């Protein structure tokens, strides 16, 4: 149990490094004001601690079928609600981690992992390719149209 947690923490640390390096580069080329390194370190550490807690919560409640991703969102959501005493410092720390910088490593891993499925994919007929595209469009615009209608009714947009 403990060695498992240590392993997970190590993996999360590497991911954290990737996020920091990616963020530094993106700030350099867009000439954004650089966040002091110490501050972004604290920020990413705060984020990583929540990630490990989320993993542990998922393991502690296997019956709930709540993915670790959802746990992570839930914890951060609660800690950052305006009426929570934690919100100010929590948002200040996590604010030094860019949203977009967290997305790049994920999709790099995702791209590589799809490699195992390429042979399977070649067997799927072109018809299923077209259908999948239409399914994507169907769910996206189906939801968007309903949301548009209801948000209008509510006077939010």
């Amino acid at each position, binding site marked *: 149990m403990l060695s498992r947690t240590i392993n997970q923490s190590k993996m999360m640390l590497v991911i954290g490094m990737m996020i920091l390096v990616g963020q530094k580069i993106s700030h350099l080329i867009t000439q954004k004001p650089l966040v002091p390194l110490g501050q972004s370190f604290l920020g990413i550490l705060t984020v990583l601690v*929540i990630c490990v807690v989320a993993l542990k919560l998922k393991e502690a409640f296997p019956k709930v079928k709540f993915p670790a991703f959802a746990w992570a969102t839930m914890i951060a959501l609660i800690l950052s609600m305006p009426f929570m005493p934690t919100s100010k410092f929590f948002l200040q720390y996590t604010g030094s981690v860019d949203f977009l910088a967290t997305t790049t490593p994920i999709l790099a891993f995702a791209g590589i992992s799809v490699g195992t499925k390429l042979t399977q994919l070649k067997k799927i007929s072109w018809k299923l390719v077209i259908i999948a595209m239409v399914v994507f469009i169907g769910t996206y615009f189906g939801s968007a149209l309903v949301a548009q209608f209801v948000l209008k009714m509510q006077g939010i947009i």
Partner: protein
Amino acid sequence: MKENKQPVDPFTEATKNSSALFKLYIIVFIIVIISELIGIKKFAVGPGSVVLLPMLYAVIIGLVITPGILGKYIQSLKSLVSEEVMEIAGIMVMLSLLPLGVKYGTLVGPNIVKVVQAGPAFLLQELGNLGTVFIGLPLAMALGLKREAIGATVSICREPTLGVIGERYGINSPEGTGVLGTYMMGTVLGTIFFGLLGSFAVNTGIHPYALAMASGMGSGSMMTAASSSLAETVPAMRDTILAYAATSNMLTGVTGLYSVVFLALPLSNWLYKKWEPIFDRREKAKGSVNDVK
């Protein structure tokens, strides 16, 4: 019945093979650096614009270097991105999603009042996911698919749907083939597709908030692709867009499974029975023309 088989723990599997894990880290580090160096690119396309994000380059580079594509021609690449490396990458996706999950939480939290106010819209737009059945099913049947059509169009076919169809019909059934098809396409092309659609959809005149809600489809990576490209296109609404998308995605995570079991699947089966004779007749008509020839 007793469960004898201990499920293989992915983390221990991954850490056991430390050389493959190390290789993967180096590869992904390089991909991240290259992708961030290219940076965000905006293109004017027709009336609107398309935003290309580093994550889009990352998924494409990652895919291209696998043995199935470039590895076929470059021997050293093939040995670098080995079968084990790709396996471990699948586990790392799950872990690397977590920091993003935290960031999404920090976007929803401060906006919690706004999100609760929009509650009815959140709940009702979940029904919009049935759009897959209304548009997808007739198209699939028109293309000549039989029961595969049901699996392929019952939803956007992420893991929960895979589970439902697999349990009810078996994954080797026609329905199973259909659901796997859409699932695989989603895994390979989903993020690229939604990364482009997310920024382009603004041109349809649908409000960015509505599009943001639509981005939450029950897939973390597709939601991210759709909502962050949307947010980059309409930067003034960035925070609300990301908060809405994250909330909608969480909600779909909860309701998605039930919506497939109790709404989408019965609806598809009912529509299939209704439409089958129509498409069958067309098929037969075509067949007889061929016979005459």
